């Protein structure tokens, strides 16, 4: 890993996840699009929904860490330095943000027809 080429990263992730990679990218792209569309349509942030989404996000963050521990046959208790704390924060943060955005979006679009 002497040079960091984004295409190499893509190849590696494809090898790692197989078809799951495309599903993940699809979820990320569609989820983000639906989230932004929802924001623009509502032109406001529903704070009640946001709090619930953030609570779900906490669970998502923990799940991301558990998943990581499982696939790496180790755990965040093995952290030995700043780079490790950064990785833990990153994995937790991505799990939290991803889940929160998805839950907020799903709740928003589901409640709209009723409202």
């Amino acid at each position: 890993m002497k040079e960091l080429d984004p295409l190499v990263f893509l190849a590696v992730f494809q090898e790692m996840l197989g078809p799951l990679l495309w599903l993940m990218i699809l979820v990320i792209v569609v989820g983000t699009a639906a989230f932004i569309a929802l924001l623009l349509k509502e032109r406001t942030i529903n704070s009640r929904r946001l709090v619930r989404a953030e609570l779900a996000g906490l669970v998502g963050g923990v799940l991301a860490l558990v998943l990581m521990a499982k696939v790496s046959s180790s755990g965040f208790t093995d952290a030995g330095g700043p780079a490790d704390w950064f990785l833990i924060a990153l994995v937790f943060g991505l799990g939290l943000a991803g889940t929160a955005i998805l839950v907020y979006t799903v709740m928003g679009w589901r409640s709209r027809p009723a409202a």
Partner: protein
Amino acid sequence: MYKDALAKMLDDSAKTALDRRSFLMLGAAGAGSLLLRPGSAQAAAKTKSAARIVIAGAGAAGLAAASYLAARLDGAKITLIDARKEHFYQPGFTLVAAGIKQSSYVVSTTREYIPGGVELIEERVAEFDPEGNKVVTESGTAVPYDFLVVATGLKLDYDAIPGMDTEQIGNNGLGSIYHSPAKAEATWRAMSDFADKGGVGVFLRPGTEMKCAGAPLKYTFITDDHLRRRGNRGKAEIIYNANNKALFSVPIVHEKVRMLFEDRGVKVNYERVLESIDLGKKLAVFKTPIGPVELQYDFINVIPPMRAPDSVRNSPLRWQEGGWANDGWIEVDKHSLRHKRFDNVFAVGDVAGVPKGKTAASVKWQVPVAVDHLIASIEGKESKAHYGGYTSCPLITRLGQAMLIEFDYKDNLTPSFPGVIAPLEELWISWVMKTMALKPTYISMLRGRA
């Protein structure tokens, strides 16, 4: 496209709301860029050639070379020669012997990595004839070539240790992780048994060049950790026997490992090479400057001397003098991997007679350089590609932590992530890379995509 879409989006959102079409455009632009593959960049620059290229050996180096050559040449006849139908992901052997992975984790088939248009002859090369520009297979078939890439790997010379019997690996405290996936798993059973009972654990490395010189150290650390996790470290003595005066060829890494061994209570002996073994009596005899020394063991991880395969060793390709001549490593220029006496011959991977790194990471950086020089020869040009000896060793120091050590011919550390992943620090992130990212990177390399 990006810029326009983004400008339109900002513009729109400033006015009222985002209109659906520009939104989709932005998404499509993003997805499109992700779909681009390295192959598409290389496809444009293919060199037309009718050259016959023979690659002896279809392990990591041979398969990667085939993929790189196939991607850059149009019309060349590329032939891989290897008898083994299974492909082994060797960097995973330590994890199998550590009880982390099953042996199936390291086994796949050679066929699944053969690039389109490349022929595979499922035989062993019996003879190299670089003067006659041909190789001869076991069945006596002569395969002529214009260019030869030797990637046969090396031979584990268990026969050089009197008393050693590979059939016994896994029994009676005998381990040897290098032999095969099955024996790596058998080694795990023997080591786990030792971690339950305690006793004397003997670790060593051979006096020859070897593949992944970090592996003997890793396995010492892993055994120490299993003993600790089971509360049996107090019942065990761990002895590491270095073949020379260092634990690792890179001085700064040697010092770090020396400190870690001291911290973990691992006793170190220098200048000891396993000479013979008595499996029944669990007795290992080491050659030392003061004569043979015996060590009684309850568990031993035998790592045999490593040499070039006989077909290479008996050929004119090997070094003619110096320390590498006897073991038969191929005489190549260490920066281009081109043979010093036969211009149309290259050697990559373990069999190459270069100073450092018989690892998959070395292969990853050697292959593109050798291929570039080979293709430049076809085109009648000079290549500037240069291999500086880069290699890497995720040195596991306990289960869940490793040091991501990367270095080159000059013994310099060459960290990929300076300031983020410290090379001499025991980190979880380095372990995560070893267990999660390394195999996908390796497979991408076989396919010529990394």
